[in-house]
């Protein structure tokens, strides 16, 4: 049973436009949601997170929105840059737990 889902395997956006990556979850017990970015042949790196008691968190060009009633979160990248081209993983964590639950990832391609 997939508790965290990323239904779009790929997304293509023009440079300078907004990229919106989506993630759905089923377990209402998650306390934190995180986004990771992964380039080919490298390990994932942490990008941004949000607590379940918040509905928005912003860090520079990256904003994560959480809609608890819909069990949905999204990552907005504005403006998108070619260097943002990577696989983005959504993950969820329950405080005090000892592992994260990951989605299957979305390949973002930012075109010139």
């Amino acid at each position: 049973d997939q508790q965290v889902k990323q239904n779009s395997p790929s997304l293509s956006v023009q440079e300078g436009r907004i990229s919106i990556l989506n993630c759905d979850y089923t377990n209402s017990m998650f306390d934190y949601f995180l986004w990771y970015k992964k380039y080919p042949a490298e390990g994932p790196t942490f990008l941004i997170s949000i607590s379940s008691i918040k509905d928005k968190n912003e860090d520079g060009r990256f904003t994560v929105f959480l809609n608890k009633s819909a069990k949905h979160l999204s990552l907005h990248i504005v403006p998108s840059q070619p260097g943002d081209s990577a696989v983005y993983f959504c993950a969820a964590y329950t405080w005090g737990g000892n592992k994260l639950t990951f989605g299957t990832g979305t390949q973002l391609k930012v075109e010139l």
Partner: protein
Amino acid sequence: DVKVTQSSRYLVKRTGEKVFLECVQDMDHENMFWYRQDPGLGLRLIYFSYDVKMKEKGDIPEGYSVSREKKERFSLILESASTNQTSMYLCASLRTSSTGELFFGEGSRLTVL
């Protein structure tokens, strides 16, 4: 600067060989993980460990074993490598009762011929 270090970035092995992948973290984290990443399948958890000598199976443990003799070190062992174990292997660590930030190593690309 926090760090998770994987011993080999690229390995090429033959079918049936025993393979060791080593991982060391310098953050005194309790939890360590081994994932594999394959296109279209995301990050799949192989094994994790929440303490020295403790281990738990993840989603795809078949064909793998692990060892955690010291807190900072977590090893993944392929007893008899097979071609379907060709993949990118990622080690990670996590502090219990954190906000969930998992720290990953650079990855080990294993090719089994």
